[in-house]
């Protein structure tokens, strides 16, 4: 390959959701990309999806060469992903080259051979449907069919060259033994070494985590590192390109009401329209109430609000709201509120993220509330949870939606984590709700810990709850240590000094 051609490698958008962001535009056009992964890592799905997306999104035809499963099996297996391969075949957009072993027929080897017949068949198939995309699945299976591995290796190299001459963009799948070991079995990376994508299916603190990594694209750029993906029932693989998207966000100075006039005042005039507010507090402290007010505040201004509930049922949420004088049913009837109540355990965190994105795309809300993030936190590893929060945050901000996430602290008084530093740094504002024990009485306190891009009230205010909602009162004037969970009465003259300490309470 000469330097000149290397500099002008074009990309073919794969159409696989998210993958084209990770690959910086798609797969190298007219080249072969090796997709390597352990058993069950999603190689066959990706190979099939590459062709499916070609047909559905770009009107490009594809040829699927199968070495392991028969064409019948593949048609059936991917039907569950909503792909009707037979319809594509009937329309002349898809054809199989079935190179799977024929049952009950031992093949006798009597000397040198080559893959000439296969290449001829692929050429025929490519011509017949006018294919621009080719998928070969999997190379390991062809090594299992024939005894002479060195012949097969040489011949696969010749096949890769032939594919290039046909001008098609190809995917070849290959097996690997370890998630972080050799690229592939049988040394296959040597003949398609220019472009390698690795799929992983790693067990991480008892949770399965699927990731995709572009290991190399010779002569062209791509995003580095592993990106999580999931396999959705009617969609196939969806890659979640987290850090690749997070830097594009704008920042708005438009304020919106939190739904509570006193809180708006504390925040310096309300939340920012495209900001993410984290609401942290112990159970029963008022988080769901503040969420309810946030939604009511939106609805009262004719904004569309999406409530994603992971702790309480629709019915409970409606009842809670009516107890505070907010009629969620009426909001829903007006088309301004959609409540999605799901058990966190119904699916993996990646799947939740995709489902949330779909809900946001469909409902197109101005405000999104998640109650609570903590319920989702137990669904994943620390890394997986962080990725989820980054993914959700960047998606929401990109659409200029206001987000309110609640987090439950473990202890009633104070709170050791504002929920784990790695999340607080992502959010724009943090509001703490705390129980305060004073003179044998439980009181509730609220403070705005962080308000990015705006001055805010730094007092810890007492608030009360009644049938009309939340009422924020005066600051706790003669008590300190609330955030630490050990309120103590202090003489008023020491207050100045103590207040300074509040400002230094670290976010982590």
């Amino acid at each position, binding site marked *: 390959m000469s330097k000149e051609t290397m500099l002008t490698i074009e990309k073919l958008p794969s159409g696989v959701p998210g993958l084209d962001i990770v690959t910086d535009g798609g797969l190298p056009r007219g080249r072969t990309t090796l997709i390597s992964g352990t058993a069950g890592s999603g190689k066959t799905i990706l190979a099939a999806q590459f062709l499916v997306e070609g047909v559905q999104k770009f009107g490009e035809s594809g040829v699927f060469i199968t070495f392991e499963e028969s064409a019948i099996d593949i048609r059936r297996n991917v039907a569950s992903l909503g792909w009707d391969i037979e319809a594509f075949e009937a329309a002349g957009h898809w054809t199989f080259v079935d190179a799977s072993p024929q049952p009950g*027929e031992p093949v*006798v080897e009597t*000397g040198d051979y080559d893959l000439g017949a296969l290449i001829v*068949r692929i050429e025929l198939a490519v011509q017949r449907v006018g294919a621009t995309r080719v998928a070969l699945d999997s190379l390991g299976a*062809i090594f299992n069919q024939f005894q002479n591995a060195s012949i097969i290796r040489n011949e696969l190299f010749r096949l890769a060259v032939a594919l290039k001459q046909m001008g098609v963009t190809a995917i070849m799948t290959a097996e690997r033994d370890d998630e972080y070991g050799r690229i592939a079995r049988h040394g296959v990376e040597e003949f398609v070494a220019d472009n390698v994508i690795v799929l992983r299916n790693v067990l991480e603190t008892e949770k399965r985590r699927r990731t995709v990594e572009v290991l190399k694209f010779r002569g062209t750029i791509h995003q580095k590192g592993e990106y999580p993906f999931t396999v959705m029932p009617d969609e196939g693989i969806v890659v979640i390109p987290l850090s690749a998207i997070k830097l594009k966000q704008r920042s708005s100075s438009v304020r919106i009401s939190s739904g509570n006039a006193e809180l708006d005042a504390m925040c310096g005039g309300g939340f920012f329209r495209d900001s993410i507010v984290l609401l942290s507090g112990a159970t029963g402290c008022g988080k769901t109430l503040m969420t309810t007010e946030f939604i009511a505040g939106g609805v009262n201004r004719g904004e569309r609000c999406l409530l994603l509930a992971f702790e309480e049922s629709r019915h409970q949420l409606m009842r809670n709201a009516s107890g505070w004088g907010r009629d969620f049913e009426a909001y829903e009837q007006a088309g301004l509120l959609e409540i999605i109540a799901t058990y966190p355990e119904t699916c993996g965190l990646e799947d939740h993220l995709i489902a949330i994105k779909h809900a946001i795309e469909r409902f197109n809300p101005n405000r999104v509330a998640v109650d609570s993030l903590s319920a989702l936190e137990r669904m994943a590893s620390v890394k997986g949870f962080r990725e989820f929060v980054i993914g959700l945050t960047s998606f929401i901000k990109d659409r200029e939606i206001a987000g309110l996430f609640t987090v439950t602290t473990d202890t009633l008084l104070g709170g050791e984590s504002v929920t784990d530093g790695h999340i607080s740094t992502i959010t724009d504002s943090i509001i703490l709700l705390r129980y305060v024990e004073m003179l044998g009485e439980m009181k509730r306190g609220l403070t705005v810990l962080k308000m990015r891009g705006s001055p805010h009230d730094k007092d810890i205010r007492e608030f009360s709850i009644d049938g009309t909602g939340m009422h924020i009162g005066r600051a706790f004037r003669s008590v300190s240590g609330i955030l630490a969970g050990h309120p103590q009465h202090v003489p008023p003259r020491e207050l100045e000094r103590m207040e300074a300490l509040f400002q230094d309470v670290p976010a982590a």
Partner: protein
Amino acid sequence: MSNYKLRLYITGHTAQAERAIANLKRICAEELQGRYQMEVIDLVEDPEEGERQRIIVTPTLIKQLPPPLRRIIGDLSDKERVVSGLDLLPTLTDGGDASGDAS
């Protein structure tokens, strides 16, 4: 009496293909005197046939008759394997052949 029907698939007349043709002719002449039909099919000229027969490598020799159908790949340079792959008895006596003719 068995009549062997053999088809040899090649892709272009490469040295390997010519070697396979020569090997097959020699083996047939030695083992199947006059009791065989042999056809050479070049898949470059007839790729459809390759698809129909699901040929992957060339040369591929298919014994269509007598049953069972057999597939032998390679340039047929290993005569012993070819003979056993075709279900030919190593030595045949004239006229008394009763092998593989059940159907």
